[in-house]
């Protein structure tokens, strides 16, 4: 071999084929054909891409010419070893025209014209036709008596597009309608002489139809063998050669392909991969993760095999979990809090290695936190950027097309990549760079996700796009998801025509400036993040910038300067909405090194603006921090995966088909799949997680929870009994009238009084400031008099006499209205001088200044001193200060506090009623126990001051705190005792309060004491506490709930 191609041979060939072909073409062809002139001519003609026109096209497409240069070297290699590849190529090439008679025939002028026609048609599409293979197809004869000779050329006719309203995926069985639909996808073939001869098999038509219609594929065929005289249903063996248009691999063509191939359901069969399979082209590099894998999983699971699933798959590599056998998971129907653990599992994290945080982190990490750091670094690293750039994305497969295409190369190996999920094809190498680099840190509340994240920031921070070649990154990391997102929302599954492919013609992401870390959190946590970073990161190690507020700069450079940019979901969302334009600024003009979503469940509704906004960010690394990765629905996970770019699950169709639907239908395989997806990318530990030795990962000092049962004194008992009897009479009336739920507020009010009575009878009677108005007539007088006192002479400021009488009448009758702000029954109601009733906390919360403001109802100026605590219709009036008597509960509390006094151990005293806190101040002052007080009336600064005082001043032993003061996240670990004086309907509120002392940072053992008065409503409340929660928050619709609520109320009045 290696024969020299002589000029003589070239001119011989040229004399036959004319000047449409370059010398190079001819030389190549001759070379291939071993200087056999006839064979070379045939090669030239058989291969449509051997055409002069190609030259310009090659040059026009830089992307492709780049490829070309690669392959040129490849082909040179081939030349040096002509025996190897080339022969192989030839054998494939000859398959395209296996019949020698065809070859000779092709050298006729007619056929040259035919080829020219083809070239015309191809140039109109703008790509080139690449021959990809030739196979035998067994067609079926549809005619009788016609003749077809071996080697006869056949023409294919494809049904028109509009005829195929519903391409049926299926067989010919079924009814008439079905058949009609099926007709539309039949591809027939004919010859010039005889007309229609037969049709090709369905599997071929189905994959060819959409491709041919889109002018992506062209086929030619000739008869290979056929019976001498055709009869209906006779087999005709055709030799079909397939050409693919190069535009297939360059342009985004999903839409059109989808439109034809799946109008009825979310088809997961894609024509191109199918065609390749039919052509016998097998991927040389298979996708690690294919739809097939998933379907195999759909086979019945071997449920006996349940043991050890979790441990064996704990570190399941990437997505490759070949067997997903079922460990039984209960309660799949709905996802309650408890089911969360079932779905996402709690990681047996002890398998993880630990990693020492960098020295710039100025605090000690616990062992499980070091594990998290190692895990996060590991996930971010992936296989390393370089390796990632050269490793095939697991959803894609590579196929070598032995194709003749460029005029410069005779046969080249063309590598194309197919996405086995979306059916997308491309020539660009789809690398793992596209995959998620990051994950979900889902440790339960209180384990220190923030500090772990700060450790990560310190351990590794660069600028976005800096760690790998920009071209790679730019092309791969981002895709056109954002534009597709709206179509993928769960409610519009039918519209999912577009799939988020790795579209190369996306906005020009290389214009983005490389930035540092972006942390997105709820507005309320902005300050906390800032404070935590400032305290835990060594000064100077991280520059921090808070991107928030109206005047925030939109200049990307400023954002990119800082190592850490803090912002809120609100800002993110607003910058996203203004982002439509190409030249957007702000957060979207930066390519972030890392994006961290704190409380990532914020983006859980996938069609919400904020969810789309988050998914649209450009970043190399992505993290979700959330204690509750699933709040309501499995779907919540979808949003996170979309943000994280965990393919193919960021694609709603796939998610819905393989996970959501099976899950909703109770097929546990959906759940299994989710678990296998999440396992490698999610870390979740709870307070109960244990380490290697079985010790809890977070060793908090023990918490001792006790209930102190108090006995009422005789006097208290009499009072309580009297109140109870009176309340019960009212309640029974409501029951008799069947109007329990209509008088719900009144009943709660009755209960409220009883509960308060358990704390201290004074609460029910009256308090110091109301004493002079305890007589309602006096109250009325005071109002009227108060009006006269107004110096400004705004006579109309005075509430009218009639109105006051009405109010007083209401109070006298004990009618219970509702607070105009919270719309609930009054709690700690106060009267304004303008005679409007409101909850004290609601009123004060509406004020901008703590001492005076406007009445929310009538906008008259009110000062705090003017507020009158609403008197009840009680007959008892006492000056609490002078006649101070300890209730049994207060006595029990004081005893506890006295015992603790010598140890210097600090305590928090919780009550729901600020009035009770008022009362408690009396004995505390008398016993000289130093205390501070925190309630809802304090503003942020005052609050911080109180907390600081309590934490830092060692002589202050007690913090009086109202449960409503809320403020989740307040750290009060300087206290080690908590006293919960009254039970709250919702035990979670109590627990949350207690959590403020029993959390990271607590060094001493914790004592929690709840006070319950025996034989009272408090005790019965405990019994219904859990059910009560539903009662309080439930809607008024369901009849069952109503009955249950009445029952519960009855329980309380026994």
């Amino acid at each position, binding site marked *: 071999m290696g024969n020299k191609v002589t000029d003589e041979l070239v001119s011989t060939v040229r004399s036959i084929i004319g000047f449409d072909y370059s010398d190079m073409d001819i030389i190549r062809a001759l070379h291939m054909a071993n200087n056999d002139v006839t064979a070379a001519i045939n090669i030239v003609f058989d291969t449509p891409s051997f055409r002069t026109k190609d030259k310009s096209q090659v040059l026009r497409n830089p992307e492709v010419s780049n490829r070309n240069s690669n392959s040129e070297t490849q082909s040179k290699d081939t030349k040096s070893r002509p025996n190897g590849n080339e022969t192989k190529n030839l054998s494939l090439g000859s398959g395209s025209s296996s019949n020698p008679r065809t070859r000779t025939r092709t050298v006729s002028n007619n056929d040259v014209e035919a080829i020219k026609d083809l070239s015309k048609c191809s140039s109109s599409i703008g790509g080139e036709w690449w021959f990809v293979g030739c196979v035998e197809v067994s067609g079926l004869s549809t005619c009788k008596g016609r003749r077809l000779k071996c080697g006869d050329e056949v023409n294919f006719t494809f049904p028109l597009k509009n005829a195929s309203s519903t391409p049926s995926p299926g067989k010919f069985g079924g009814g008439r309608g079905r058949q009609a639909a099926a007709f539309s996808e039949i591809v027939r073939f004919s010859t010039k002489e005889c007309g229609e001869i037969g049709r090709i098999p369905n599997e071929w038509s189905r994959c060819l139809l959409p491709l041919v219609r889109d002018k992506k594929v062209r086929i030619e065929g000739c008869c290979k063998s056929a019976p001498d005289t055709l009869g209906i249903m006779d087999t005709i063996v055709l030799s079909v050669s397939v050409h693919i248009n190069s535009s297939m691999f360059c342009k985004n063509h999903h839409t059109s392909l989808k439109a034809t191939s799946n109008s009825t359901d979310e088809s997961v069969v894609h024509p191109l991969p199918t065609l390749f399979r039919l052509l016998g082209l097998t991927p040389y590099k298979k996708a690690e993760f294919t739809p097939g894998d998933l379907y195999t999983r759909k086979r019945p699971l071997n449920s006996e095999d349940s043991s050890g699933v979790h441990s064996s798959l704990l570190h399941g590599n990437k997505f490759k979990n070949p067997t997903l056998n079922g460990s039984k998971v209960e309660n799949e129907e709905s996802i309650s809090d408890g089911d969360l653990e079932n779905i996402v599992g709690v990681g047996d994290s002890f398998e993880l290695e630990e990693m020492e945080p960098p020295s710039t982190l100025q605090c000690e990490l616990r062992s499980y936190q070091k594990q998290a750091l190692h895990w996060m670094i590991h996930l971010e690293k992936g296989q390393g950027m370089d390796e990632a750039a050269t490793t095939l994305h697991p959803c894609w497969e590579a196929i070598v097309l032995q194709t003749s295409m460029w005029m410069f190369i005779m046969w080249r190996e063309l590598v194309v990549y197919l996405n086995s999920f979306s059916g997308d094809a491309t020539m660009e190498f789809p690398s793992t760079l596209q995959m998620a680099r990051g994950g979900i840190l889902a440790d339960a509340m209180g384990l220190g996700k923030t500090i772990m994240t700060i450790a990560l920031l310190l351990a590794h921070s660069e600028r976005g796009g800096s760690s790998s070649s920009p071209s790679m990154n730019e092309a791969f990391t981002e895709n056109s998801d954002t534009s597709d997102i709206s179509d993928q929302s769960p409610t519009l599954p039918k519209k999912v025509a577009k799939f988020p492919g790795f579209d190369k013609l996306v906005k020009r992401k290389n214009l983005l400036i490389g930035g540092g870390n972006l942390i997105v959190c709820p507005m309320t946590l902005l300050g906390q993040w800032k404070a935590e970073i400032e305290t835990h990161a060594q000064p100077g190690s991280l520059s921090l910038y808070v991107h928030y507020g109206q005047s925030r700069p939109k200049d990307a450079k400023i954002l990119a300067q800082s190592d850490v940019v803090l912002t809120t979901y609100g800002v993110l969302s607003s910058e996203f909405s203004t982002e439509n334009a190409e030249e957007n600024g702000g957060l979207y003009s930066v390519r972030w090194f890392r994006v961290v979503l704190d409380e990532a469940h914020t983006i859980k509704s996938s069609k*919400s603006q904020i969810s789309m906004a988050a998914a649209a960010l450009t970043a190399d690394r992505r993290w979700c921090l959330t204690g509750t990765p699933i709040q309501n629905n499995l779907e919540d996970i979808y949003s996170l995966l979309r943000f994280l770019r965990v393919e193919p699950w960021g694609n709603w169709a796939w998610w819905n088909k393989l996970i959501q639907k099976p899950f909703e239908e109770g097929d546990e395989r959906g759940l299994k799949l989710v678990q296998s997806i999440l396992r490698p990318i999610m870390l979740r530990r709870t307070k109960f997680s244990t380490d290697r030795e079985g010790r809890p990962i977070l060793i908090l000092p023990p918490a001792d929870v006790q209930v102190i049962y108090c006995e009422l004194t005789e006097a208290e008992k009499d009072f309580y009994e009297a109140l109870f009897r009176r309340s019960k009479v009212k309640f029974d009336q409501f029951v008799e009238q069947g109007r329990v739920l209509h008088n719900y507020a009144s009943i709660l009010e009755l209960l409220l009084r009883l509960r308060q009575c358990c704390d201290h009878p004074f609460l029910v009677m009256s308090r110091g400031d109301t004493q002079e108005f305890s007589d309602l007539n006096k109250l009325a007088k005071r109002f009227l008099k108060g009006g006269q006192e107004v110096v400004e002479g705004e006579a109309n400021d005075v509430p009218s006499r009639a109105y006051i009488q009405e109010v007083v009448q209401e109070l006298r009758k004990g009618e219970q209205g509702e607070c105009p702000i919270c719309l*609930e029954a009054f709690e700690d109601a106060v009267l304004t001088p303008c005679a409007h009733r409101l909850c004290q906390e609601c009123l004060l919360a509406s004020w901008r200044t703590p001492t005076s403001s406007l009445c*929310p109802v009538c906008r008259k100026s009110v000062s705090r001193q003017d507020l009158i605590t609403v008197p009840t219709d009680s007959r008892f009036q006492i000056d609490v200060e002078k006649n101070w008597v300890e209730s049994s509960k207060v006595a029990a509390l004081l005893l506890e506090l006295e015992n603790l006094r010598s140890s210097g151990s600090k305590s928090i005293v919780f009550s729901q009623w600020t009035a009770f806190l008022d009362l408690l101040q009396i004995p505390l002052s008398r016993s000289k126990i130093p205390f501070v007080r925190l309630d809802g009336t304090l503003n942020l600064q005052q609050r911080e001051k109180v907390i600081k005082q309590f934490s830092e001043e060692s002589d202050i032993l007690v913090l009086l705190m109202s449960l409503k003061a809320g403020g989740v996240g307040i750290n009060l670990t300087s206290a080690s005792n908590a006293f919960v004086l009254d039970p709250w309907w919702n035990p979670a509120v109590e627990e949350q309060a207690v959590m403020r002392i029993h959390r990271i940072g607590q060094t001493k053992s914790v004592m929690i004491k709840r006070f319950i008065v025996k034989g009272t409503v408090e005790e019965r409340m405990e019994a219904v506490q859990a059910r009560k929660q539903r009662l309080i928050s439930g809607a008024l619709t369901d009849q069952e709930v109503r009955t249950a609520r009445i029952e519960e109320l009855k329980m309380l009045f026994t």
Partner: protein
Amino acid sequence: MANSNLPRRIIKETQRLLSEPAPGISASPSEDNMRYFNVMILGPSQSPYEGGVFKLELFLPEEYPMAAPKVRFLTKIYHPNIDKLGRICLDILKDKWSPALQIRTVLLSIQALLSAPNPDDPLSENIAKHWKSNEAEAVETAKEWTRLYASGA
């Protein structure tokens, strides 16, 4: 689903709006965001807006009820206190907001504003001028717009 943290007050208000709607006003929360309401107000009788059905959107911000709801006309309307983007010049939506006000009261106030345009506190300068210089003509335009843009359908 996404509304598990909705304050009780909003739930209560919504229930009441649905169970006892104010005459001529309908407000229903969006399914996916319970803080977002689709509102329809019928043009008050004996006003230029009579016979019109006006669509509005109403959104309860995070701070609600301590901050006012955000309300906007979606239907084009010719009114001196409403601009072409549908924004409404109404004191209770701004500095005069009070937490004792509710969605219902806000919508009633807007309905009242339709009955009593106030060209002295305009949001739309041109319309206000028109109103002051030639009220009859302005009212005609308002009627015309009502016919054109707010005639139900």
